[in-house]
């Protein structure tokens, strides 16, 4: 991997290790936990959008599948927890494959609506037939592995961000491999790729499935952390939020997904003081940052660092 990525990993691991020590408040850690969960979904979407050039407004659907499948299996079918989570990811992968084959023939806005439709259908199905219906269900078991159960906020913080590191490691390596280069080629020109004999369709489907699996992982972590889920958490609103995270962080750089997730998760907490006006202020901040940090926070940051070092700014 590149030098920039290695530094980023070290920084991330350092921050993860240090945060609970500097601010052990369960509140701060909980904000961190939700940021981490969102980051997992955002990373998947970022790869799909920024590298494969496909848009998805339906990530909440896979997030919800992850949460519900894992919860139902561990509560009602008595599956061990990790097995439930893996099963959830498999189900999401399958759903993604089924959706992707017809959907990825669509382009642009049409693809966006197809994924939106998928996400909404999942939400409606969960509302109608999910256990507990719109009222949701609880008593979902907390995370446990080999007899060891995590109860503390700090424990979950480490678990989730540990998984973020693992997922990032895998993703970064993927993006620097042949597959990653193929992806970027697809983003730039599908026609050229087809002409070179690359199976573009298969590649797009695989990435779509990958983004679904990341989202499902995040969903199951959410369920086992909060121990109560209801369909309202898995709606179009969430899909748009994740999209916002990716754009704010910078669609061209997968590290942007983490930054975007943290910013979008933390921002509403900082705006609590505005009470009635918090929605308005949130919207204003988003508008301004989208207009002025158009490339996204991470690419702009990288540009600044490169300028400082005297390098010519490398355009992506």
């Amino acid at each position, binding site marked *: 991997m590149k030098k920039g990525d290695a530094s980023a990993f070290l920084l991330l691991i350092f921050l993860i290790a240090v945060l609970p020590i500097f601010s052990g408040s369960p509140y701060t850690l909980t904000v961190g936990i939700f940021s981490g969960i969102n980051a997992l979904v955002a990373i998947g979407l970022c790869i799909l*959008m920024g590298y494969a050039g496909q*848009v998805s407004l339906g990530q909440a659907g896979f997030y919800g599948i992850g949460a519900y499948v894992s919860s139902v299996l561990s509560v009602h079918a008595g599956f061990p927890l990790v097995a439930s989570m893996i099963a959830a990811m498999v189900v999401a992968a399958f759903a993604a494959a089924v959706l992707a084959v*017809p*959907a990825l*023939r*669509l*382009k*642009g*806005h*049409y693809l966006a*609506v*197809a994924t*939106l*439709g*998928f996400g*909404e*259908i999942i939400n*409606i*199905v969960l*509302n*109608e037939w999910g256990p507990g219906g719109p009222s949701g269900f609880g008593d979902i078991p907390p995370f446990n592995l080999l007899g060891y159960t995590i109860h503390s906020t700090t424990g979950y913080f480490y678990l989730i961000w540990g998984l973020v590191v693992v997922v990032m490691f895998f993703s970064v390596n993927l993006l620097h491999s042949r597959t990653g280069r193929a992806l970027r080629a697809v983003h730039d020109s599908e026609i050229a790729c087809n002409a070179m004999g690359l199976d573009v369709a298969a590649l797009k489907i695989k990435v779509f499935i990958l983004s679904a699996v990341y989202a499902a992982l995040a969903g199951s972590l959410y369920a086992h952390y909060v121990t109560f889920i209801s369909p309202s958490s898995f709606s*179009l*609103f969430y899909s*748009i939020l994740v*999209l*916002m995270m990716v*754009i704010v962080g910078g*669609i061209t750089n997968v590290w942007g997904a983490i930054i975007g997730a943290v910013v979008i998760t933390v921002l509403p907490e900082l705006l609590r003081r505005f009470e*009635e*006006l918090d*929605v*308005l*202020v*949130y*919207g*204003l901040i*988003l*508008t301004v940052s*989208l*207009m002025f940090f*158009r490339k996204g926070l991470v690419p702009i940051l990288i540009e600044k660092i490169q300028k400082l070092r005297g390098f010519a700014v490398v355009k992506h």
Partner: protein
Amino acid sequence: MLTVFLQFLFSGLTVGAVYALVGIGFNITYNATSIINLAQGEFVVIGGLMMWFFSESLKLPFFVSVVLTIITAGLVGLLMERLTIKPLKNPDLLLMIMITIAVSIVLRGVLMFYFGKDPYVYPAFTEGEPVSIYGAIIQQQTLWVIGITGFCIIALFFFFKKTIIGKAMLACAVNPTAAQLVGINVSRMVMLSFILSAIVGAIGGMAITPIALMEYDKGPMLAVKGFCAAIMGGLGSNRGAVLGGFIIGILESMTAGYIHSGLKDAVALIILLLILFFKPAGLFVSKAMLQLRKY
């Protein structure tokens, strides 16, 4: 049997008409700029709430209120375009869409601040008993909604096909550079498209409020349904948006009526997906036409 079917149909037409209007609003902006303005739903809400404000709170006469509401909506559209769209040079389309989402949040915040969370209503345009057809009733205001939608469709058809300004707006999306070369003021066309789509949205809101009431957060649901309508019909085709809107409205109603009301939204979406899988550019837009567009 017939009565029941007709009743379901009328219900579908009522909601379908609003979806159609929202879809048309999307098309107007899209046709001039290739941008999907996801704040379109908020324009509908502004239409309903401002109409209440002028006619019920300020107690102004009906026609004065209508005109003032239209002016207000147009102003909001203008402001949105000038402040958030115009300043950006060569923007990425995806970024633009996200910005419209952010603006919709701001608009919602403002509406919530001034109007609060309550629903608002004002009397129907004409008072009187609902019309009865074979035993099924159709409220007078529903006739207004459908009539107004029809009027907008015809008016816009003439505008885009027969007037210079309309044709100029269409030219901008197909190729802005070429449009500029023939002397079209592209930036003014963009501004006009936002104003026009805001007005169309507001008209929909004004018409539907006596039936469905209006609150500050009705925007997103309408935007999604209207967007689906526009996509189903083929982005850019107003004919398509109208058909799409009514199809979705009627599908919802028929599903609720004959199958199960909990699934009505899902069935409409499934049909939409099926249509897209067979006609990837929507009902009235061919794949070839799609390649011509920037996005």
